[in-house]
């Protein structure tokens, strides 16, 4: 029996061998630039290495020094998680609410708004970097000072009181990306039969329709939107920091990604790899949790 199976598998491979060649270029690039770095990160997190000379085995020294570093990494991890709650989870809820709300409005109008939101999400980071670049002549300061809300211009991205809020808000501003589009079209393609049945029953409450007929058929789109939101929340603040030319400082916005860039500039491979391993584990765990929840719910349908 198993021999037969093996034979048919071999036959399928031979029959479709050009398909493997077709997929090969992508997976070769994917392997070199995605899989290799990840494997290397796990390996080199146990070494002391500065890219010149030979790596030196150091056991778990890197990990322990990461948590010793005057609490720098610990607070970075805490900041990253907070940012994820605000931008990742919060942004997802925002996307979902917006997609639902727009679905209740006339289609043409909703489509225009959707495209505006998407265009902002794709292009907005550079603009927000200008707004938050600091100095009297950045748009935010020239508005606040010009209108009399504040007397002196301040550097909002390097001010401990406002930095987190500024980054979180500007991230939420650019949150309506491809995941949001997927949710929007998911609402449109939702099982119309169920909605019609609800209408016949005389149910007009949109909330009832949402919970009982729309959400159950939206799980794939919701999971996709959430998956896209995870790396966005963990990394995009760093892009904003780089674009606005703000130095990395010990603030609420000092995230794991900031730590990685800082150590990366000093070529401290061991510490970077450690931090990457922790970051990737964190993201994987969050995605796995979401996936398990969705899988459990979609079984009941």
């Amino acid at each position: 029996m198993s021999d037969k199976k093996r034979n048919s598998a071999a036959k399928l491979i031979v029959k479709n061998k050009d398909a493997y060649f077709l997929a090969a270029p992508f997976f070769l690039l994917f392997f070199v630039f995605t899989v290799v770095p990840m494997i290397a990160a796990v390996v080199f997190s146990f070494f002391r290495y500065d890219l010149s000379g030979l790596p030196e085995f150091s056991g778990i020294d890197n990990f322990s020094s990461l948590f010793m570093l005057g609490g720098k990494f610990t607070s970075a991890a805490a900041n990253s998680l907070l940012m994820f709650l605000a931008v990742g989870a919060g942004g997802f809820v925002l996307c979902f609410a917006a997609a639902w709300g727009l679905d209740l409005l006339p289609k043409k109008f909703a489509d225009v708004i959707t495209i505006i939101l998407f265009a902002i999400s794709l292009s907005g980071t550079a603009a927000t970097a200008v707004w938050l670049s600091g100095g009297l002549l950045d748009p935010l300061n020239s508005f606040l000072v010009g209108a009399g809300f504040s007397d002196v211009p301040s550097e909002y991205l390097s001010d401990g009181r406002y930095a987190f809020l500024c980054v979180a808000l500007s991230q939420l501003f650019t949150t309506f990306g491809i995941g949001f589009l997927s949710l929007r079209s998911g609402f449109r393609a939702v099982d119309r039969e169920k909605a019609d049945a609800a209408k016949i029953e005389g149910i007009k409450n949109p909330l009832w329709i949402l919970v009982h007929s729309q959400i159950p058929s939206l799980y794939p789109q919701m999971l996709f939107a959430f998956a896209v939101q995870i790396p966005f929340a963990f990394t995009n603040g760093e892009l904003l920091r780089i674009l606005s030319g703000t130095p990395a400082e010990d603030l609420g916005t000092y995230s794991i990604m900031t730590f990685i860039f800082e150590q990366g500039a000093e070529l401290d491979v061991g510490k970077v790899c450690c931090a990457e391993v922790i970051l990737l584990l964190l993201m994987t765990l969050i995605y796995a949790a979401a996936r398990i929840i969705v899988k459990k719910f979609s079984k009941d349908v």
Partner: protein
Amino acid sequence: MNKNKKQLVFLLIKIVVIILVSIIALGLCAPIYFVVIRSFSPTEELFPIKLFPAEPTLRHFSELLNGVGEYGTPFSRNLFSSLLTALLTAVIQISVVCAAAYVLAKVKAPGIKALNLIIEWSIILSPLTLYVLRYFLMLKMGISDTYFAAVLPLAASPLAVFLVKGYMRVVPDEIIYCARLDGASHFRICFGIVMPVIKPAIIAVSVLTFGELWQYTGELFVKSEAVKPLSGLMSEFSASAESAGIFCALAAVITIPIIVLSAVFGKEIAQTAECAGIRTEHKTKIKAQKSDKAV
């Protein structure tokens, strides 16, 4: 009478909601609008903020285009390297991604399912998450300071494959089955039959990648000025008195093309997003199909 009244109230509510949403949307456009409009304002008019400059000028743009960086490299050179990187990425990505997506979506052979799962999980690896690791790798490979440093990782983007793969469901399996029976190779089917049909997905993915690339800063990677992308200049300017206008002009040059592209190709992007969704119930579905065929 009563019914008419009710309808009128509904209509009124609808109009109010539409007006409110329009105001919110306009408010969301404001940050980008002001950056663009300030790039046309003379420096004297930058403070306080103005809705529209009294004397619009193109001076900042001409200064940007004719400007020269710290080491004597003209900024137009940075613009050129950004364009070249975008073009290179688009060409490599489209050919590589479409081929892989076709195989992942339409070929049933051992190992394909595992590759599908890997791609699904790799969505959470955006380019920035592996940025520094790739920097180390490319330093070792000796290509960190070239265009390829930006092009190659983005060309093999898992999100791009996932999106194109999802869109493949508009291509009926029967067509591919018939073509296979006629003896067509997977190469011919992919590039001859499938590619023209999935044009919207190709456009959507290209726009997304362009947006990502156009804001790629080359931080760490890029040492030589000639390779530096346009966004890499952002951090060199600040809103200081002399360069605030040029800074806005640079941001406008980065922002406007992305907005234009996503507005022009909004329909294609929406069509592609419609097919994006992670289905967790793969197994049961495939089993059900198999039993159908057996019957």
